[in-house]
């Protein structure tokens, strides 16, 4: 099929040189792509000359779909974009609608939202840790990570009703109050995970084989990270300060004690360290909030049908993979005129070619694992 593709028409790519170029297709159903990503790789021996992503295997045109949904409904479609950060996606959309409608969110709802966001971030990073290590060849971490992630999923199930795409947020607050067991179970999780995260470090971070696979691999400089629009741990591993929670705090983030994790290595190991340290920060945020949920309403009083005033609204939140932006253009009707989702994965993926070029084919999987690609987030 890819005999006819554009890649072969470019000068120097199609014509075999002395060693002979080879074109390899990874995906769309390769285990390391975590979904349906298709990469066409031009190789010279073992060295990567070019990585060309082919997207769209799970494209659902969510932006177009949202144009026919009301301002209450469209929020829940975004759970299906980055399914590992579905709370945070919903959060971004709610913030944008609230900005337009000038809705004040009650303090209790704000705290619950942030708690849920951070639990989601923990679950996402746990899955990344397990699956990422598995991509590189260590099978054991996967079982460790999923054991702890199960606890978060159970907490989510009890309060939100579902385990993965929670659809828990509404404009003006959250849908229902937390389950009576919520605080107890979160505290159980904190004490459990505090010992386990040290175990994670022992198991993988200090492992020499693992370090050899990721150190010095997939280098991305600070200027390139900004230019490619990389955000989240991918950019913070290159020394870019880009945590939206710190730069443009939303909800109660400005009242919390936590650090923005920035590493300057720029390689895969730096990105790995950022995520590992972020888990500890998230854990500390959850710990600060779980005993301090204020009493009160969980939802502000809103009209049944929301009509955003004519204008443009933009909100930014920090998902587990980076900056998620929602851009709404409203014409004053009940449905958005145009919605754009700025997904972190899409921009991070665009830097993949730059990071992998000149490296070895074996390192590509390590680079992909440490960017933490979620394909539905990229295709939308």
């Amino acid at each position, binding site marked *: 099929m890819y005999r006819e593709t*554009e890649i072969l028409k470019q000068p120097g790519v199609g014509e075999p040189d002395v060693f002979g170029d080879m074109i390899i297709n990874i995906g769309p159903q390769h285990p390391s792509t975590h979904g349906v990503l298709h990469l066409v790789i031009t190789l010279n021996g073992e060295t990567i000359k070019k990585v060309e*992503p*082919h*997207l*769209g295997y799970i*494209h659902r*045109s969510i*932006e*177009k*779909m949202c144009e*026919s*949904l009301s301002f209450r*409904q469209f929020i829940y479609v975004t759970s299906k974009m980055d399914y590992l950060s579905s709370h945070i996606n919903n959060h971004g959309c709610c913030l944008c609608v609230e*900005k337009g409608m000038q809705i004040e969110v009650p303090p209790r709802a704000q705290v619950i939202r942030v708690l849920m966001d951070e639990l989601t971030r923990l679950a996402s990073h746990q899955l990344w840790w397990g699956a990422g290590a598995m991509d590189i060849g260590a099978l054991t971490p996967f079982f460790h990570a999923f054991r702890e992630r199960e606890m978060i999923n159970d907490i989510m199930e009890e309060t939100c009703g579902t385990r993965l795409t929670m659809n828990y947020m509404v404009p003006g607050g959250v849908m229902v109050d937390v389950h009576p067991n919520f605080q107890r179970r979160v505290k159980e999780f904190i004490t459990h995970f505090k010992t386990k995260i040290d175990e994670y470090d022992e198991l993988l971070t200090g492992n020499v084989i693992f370090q050899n696979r990721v150190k010095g691999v997939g280098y991305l400089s600070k*200027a*390139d990270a*900004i*230019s*490619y*629009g990389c955000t989240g741990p991918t950019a913070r591993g290159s020394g*870019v*300060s*880009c945590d939206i929670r710190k*730069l443009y705090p939303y909800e109660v983030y400005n009242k919390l004690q936590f650090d923005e994790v920035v590493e300057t290595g720029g390689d895969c190991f730096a990105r790995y360290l950022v995520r590992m340290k972020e888990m500890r920060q998230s854990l500390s945020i959850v710990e600060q909030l779980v005993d301090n949920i204020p009493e009160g309403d969980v939802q502000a009083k809103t009209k049944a049908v929301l009509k955003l005033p004519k*204008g*443009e*609204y*933009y909100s*930014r939140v920090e998902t587990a993979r980076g*900056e998620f*932006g929602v*851009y709404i*253009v409203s014409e004053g009707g009940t449905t958005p*005129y*145009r919605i*754009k989702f*700025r997904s972190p994965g*899409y*921009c991070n*993926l*665009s*830097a993949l070619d*730059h990071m992998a070029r000149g490296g070895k084919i074996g390192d590509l999987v390590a680079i992909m694992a440490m960017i933490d690609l979620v394909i539905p987030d990229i*295709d939308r």
Partner: protein
Amino acid sequence: MNKEELKIKLTELFPTPAFDETGEWLTVNIAPDNLLSVAEILRNKVELNFDYLFCQTCVDWKTHLTMVYHLESTTYRHQLVVKAQLDRNKPEIETVSHIWRTAEFNEREAYEMFGVNFLNHPDLRLLILPDGWEGRNPMRKDFEDPVNMIRL
């Protein structure tokens, strides 16, 4: 720089900038022909230093298309929105992918979804849509697909 300072600075740099202050950030409307020169100044002037293009998209207004560029400076943390109005029948604009590398993918998306032709783009072809979709732009308002579109 805050909104007012930015406005004064931009008035110095460009002859007659058309500002729009209804949104959260300062918005400047430019002609598509000027995009490249404006983008270069915004990126390269040390006191502006807009090095981060955090959102680039297109809006179909039925009579025309509008390219929207959300810019931010990672050193000064000020934002600016640049808009360029395009002819709907022959939408053409210069690429900015050599200034902000992230534009390469975003422009490919705008090309397939809205049919905007980016001049001098290094690799302008379909990215998300499968082969054979050239010329049919699903994100335009008048796009109809009798089979796959679900209306609510």
